[in-house]
């Protein structure tokens, strides 16, 4: 990634300019013929810049050169599953049959879309060992919220209003407690064991009549498989609570085990992680949820159902079925006004179709790559004599799709922090791994290579990681130096809030 040149390109430098980047046909009537209430007429147009099309194209191209994506280089960002996004997915999602359709069109005009929704619902149910799936939640966190809302209505329906508490391990993603709190639940956080795994004694100590659910991800945020998960499920189920599976790490186990087999009642899928929807700098995502039969009547409305077509419907059917929107009996209603992020669902459908029943190999390669990279880093570190500067974040023979390293020894002996190493990696042309999460590992670095990286990329990264560890502390404190800007002052940003272009007269 270049710096994009020393000259800055700022959109609002074109404020007051004469550029005209649009060409539009004339309106059907002149503005004077429009009947606008005088008190609602806009008095001053927005103070927007004016760019010609070439100026606009250059500005955004310049910006793009100052941004790092998977397409730019290796992106081992733990817990984010940054895999390659095949371009055919983008082609599929821009076909008029998805881009140019309206969710209020009648079912018979959308049979193709509904059939794909149905296929995705079925596939996701199979993969997770669930009975029913909704594609409506538009992000993982919204999936969590949706599922917890379903739990709430389920308990209300059963007259169990006293179930007000949701249990989360202290190593959980922040969205778990935030989502449950949004639905009105009280959060009970339980400590993890020293190795980061679930503490069954701590769980036993907090469950009771007031337990609504436990939310947990497996493999956990250290990349370790929770071997006691079935036992944890029993403990929660015995007191009448429900088990929620945070699907953020589903990429590690697909086809090898399933949330259903582990005893979960509900799961969200981060489609954008497990099935590849480009992250777009922070979104859009897609966070469907799957539930067991007892929770299916509470799912958001609508989901797709199918039946045999009538004679009249047969000529419009895309296969031997007729697809319809279906409202679950005790639905919680809507969590997004329409049918979720259909465009994201389509991209993930395309990714899934390229694997089909071989989806399991996707997870196997993700786990293989993670373990290989962990091994390669240790191998190269030993060869370079820097293996004393870090330790594994968890004592384990095999990790799952991601693993953690603690830079604690480097911090103690040389004053080099995990953040310093992260910034050093930026100078080597990599995206930095996730740092300081999970909190249970001191000076944590969380690395997730995904299944789409080659052995050569992993070998080179392992070598380069060790090269960074060989740099002196001062160099690393000053890193990065090759990036478009150097370390950004986040305290300055918070103390001198500048959230929009300041005009001269303000």
């Amino acid at each position: 990634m270049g710096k994009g040149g020393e000259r800055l390109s700022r959109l609002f430098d074109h404020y007051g300019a004469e550029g005209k980047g649009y060409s539009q046909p004339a309106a059907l009537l002149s503005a004077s013929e429009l009947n606008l209430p005088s008190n609602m007429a806009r008095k001053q147009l927005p103070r927007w810049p004016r760019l010609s099309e070439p100026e606009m194209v250059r500005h955004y191209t310049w910006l793009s050169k100052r941004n790092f994506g998977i397409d730019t280089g290796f992106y081992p960002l733990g817990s984010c599953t940054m895999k390659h996004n095949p371009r055919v997915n983008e082609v599929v999602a821009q076909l008029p049959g998805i881009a140019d359709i309206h969710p209020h069109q009648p079912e018979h005009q959308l049979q193709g879309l509904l059939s794909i929704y149905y296929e995705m619902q079925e596939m996701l149910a199979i993969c997770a060992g669930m009975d029913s799936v909704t594609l409506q939640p538009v992000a993982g966190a919204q999936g969590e919220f949706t599922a917890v809302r379903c739990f709430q209505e389920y308990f209300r329906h059963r007259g169990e209003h006293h179930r007000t508490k949701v249990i989360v391990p202290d190593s959980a993603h922040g969205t778990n407690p935030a989502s449950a709190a949004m639905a009105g639940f009280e959060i009970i956080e339980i400590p993890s064991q020293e190795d980061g795994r679930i503490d069954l004694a701590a769980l036993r100590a907090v469950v009771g009549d007031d337990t609504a659910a436990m939310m947990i991800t497996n493999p956990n945020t250290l990349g370790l498989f929770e071997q006691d998960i079935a036992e944890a499920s029993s403990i929660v189920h015995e007191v009448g609570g429900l088990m929620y599976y945070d699907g953020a790490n589903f990429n590690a186990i697909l086809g090898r085990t399933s949330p259903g087999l582990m005893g979960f009642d509900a799961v969200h899928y981060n489609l954008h992680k497990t099935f590849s929807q480009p992250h777009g700098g922070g979104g859009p995502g897609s966070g469907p949820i799957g539930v067991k039969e007892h929770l299916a009547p509470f799912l958001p409305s609508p989901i797709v159902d199918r039946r045999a077509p009538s004679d009249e419907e047969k000529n419009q059917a895309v296969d031997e079925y007729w697809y319809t929107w279906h409202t679950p009996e005790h639905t919680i209603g809507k969590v997004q006004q329409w049918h979720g992020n259909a465009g994201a669902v389509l991209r993930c459908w395309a990714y899934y179709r390229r694997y089909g029943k071989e989806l399991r190999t996707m997870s196997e390669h993700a786990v293989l790559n993670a373990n290989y990279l962990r091994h390669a880093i240790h191998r190269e570190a030993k060869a370079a004599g820097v293996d004393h500067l870090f330790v594994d974040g968890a004592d384990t023979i095999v990790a799952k799709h991601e693993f953690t390293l603690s830079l604690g020894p480097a911090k103690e002996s040389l004053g080099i922090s995990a953040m310093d190493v992260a910034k050093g990696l930026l100078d080597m042309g990599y995206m930095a791994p996730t740092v300081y999460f999970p909190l249970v590992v001191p000076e944590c670095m969380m690395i997730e290579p995904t299944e789409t990286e080659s052995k050569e990329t992993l070998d080179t990264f392992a070598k380069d990681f060790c090269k960074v560890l060989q740099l002196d502390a001062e160099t690393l404190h000053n890193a990065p130096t090759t990036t478009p800007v150097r370390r950004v002052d986040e305290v300055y940003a918070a103390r001198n809030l500048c959230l929009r272009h300041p005009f001269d007269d303000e």
Partner: protein
Amino acid sequence: MGVESIDALFADVPESVRMVNDLPLPDAQSEEELLADAKRLLGSNLALGDQPSFLGAGLYRNFVPSSVFQLVTRGEFLTSYTPYQPEVSQGMLQAMWEFQSLISELIAMPITNLSLYDGSTAAAEALTCAVRVHNRKAEQKDTVYISELTPPDRISVIHNYCQGAGIEIKMLRHDANGCINLEDVARAKGSCAVYVEQPNPLGIIDGGYPSLKEIIGEHTALIVGVQPVSLGLLEAPGHYGADIVIGEGQPLGSPITGGGPLYGIFGCTQPYLRLMPGRIVGRSIDVDGKEAYCLTLSTREQHIRRHRATSNICTNETLIALMGAMHMSLLGPEGLEHLAVRNMAACTQLKRQLATIDGLSFPYEQQSHFNEFVVELPATTSSCLTYLEGQDIVGGFDVSAWYPEKTNQMLLTVTDQTSQSDINHLVESLTKWAKEVSA
């Protein structure tokens, strides 16, 4: 690496929870086979561009310039993550800061975030945010008022978000002319928030809104939902007392895409800043004092504040917001104004021509409409839609889906994509249909 087989990598999965059989799924496909299937299945959907279309009701088919699609698929934007490492994310951070600046000007709010999921969740988050800010001093605790015209699907989203916080949602009445009843609004004084939309869900530009803030007072948030293109002609809510402005951003920069991904606009005034939802970009400096951008005010967010966060949002709609920023950059102020004029001109033209048809009437005829309006039909809307489909027209929205008693009302929508010949075709078809049903 000392591991003999793939199976050994999964030895830590206890036998009792192992999946023993292969997944019962079809064979893998090549890219060509996949594309062929996608084209066949999606090709069977009726794309709105293939026929004159008058369906809107919250999502609008506006033209998105070609350069937007070309630029947004640049891999550096498309395949990046949330900008946690600002040094290598300056492109998206600056683009989102510029997005905030553009939206801030559009809605006349000093503070905006870099998008929520869509207009409905933006409305819901605005209401819960207002309760966090105002509840302590509110006489009507945990209470918000929303327009009774709010579409039921949107109310459902609002309900799901509000019920966890124990918020009661009360409805504000409208007069027979489709405008909000200002006397009824007085009930909301002392509550935490009032939520209305402009234009309202019936397409009406409600001239009563400038009085709302004075009626409800400073301790009740005025939340206005907007259709962003309309703001090329309509006054920005920040200029008539709004405290929070939300909207469905889709008409600026994005196709409808079956209802998602979209992007939710969220802007507010200073008192809401530290309790608002979503990510915010701030302009800062790097260690050399060079201009630089980073995420700021993160202590509101779930990854830091956990169950005390102002929202659980993590993934948002950055890429779609980027499309919005690109579209706004091309339009400039005059381009936006012209876009708004085209919408309203097509709407006025359609209304004029429909007025010539016997049997059709306009329940809110005296009102001004931006790009959609309700027409009362001589028979059920569903029968009319079936007829129009036979004429290769995608008709309007059946209002009975919102208000079941309004079986004969249709909400007709135009956009900048509606041509004179589209209008003529609809008017001719409706003329024939009205004659047939009254015969």
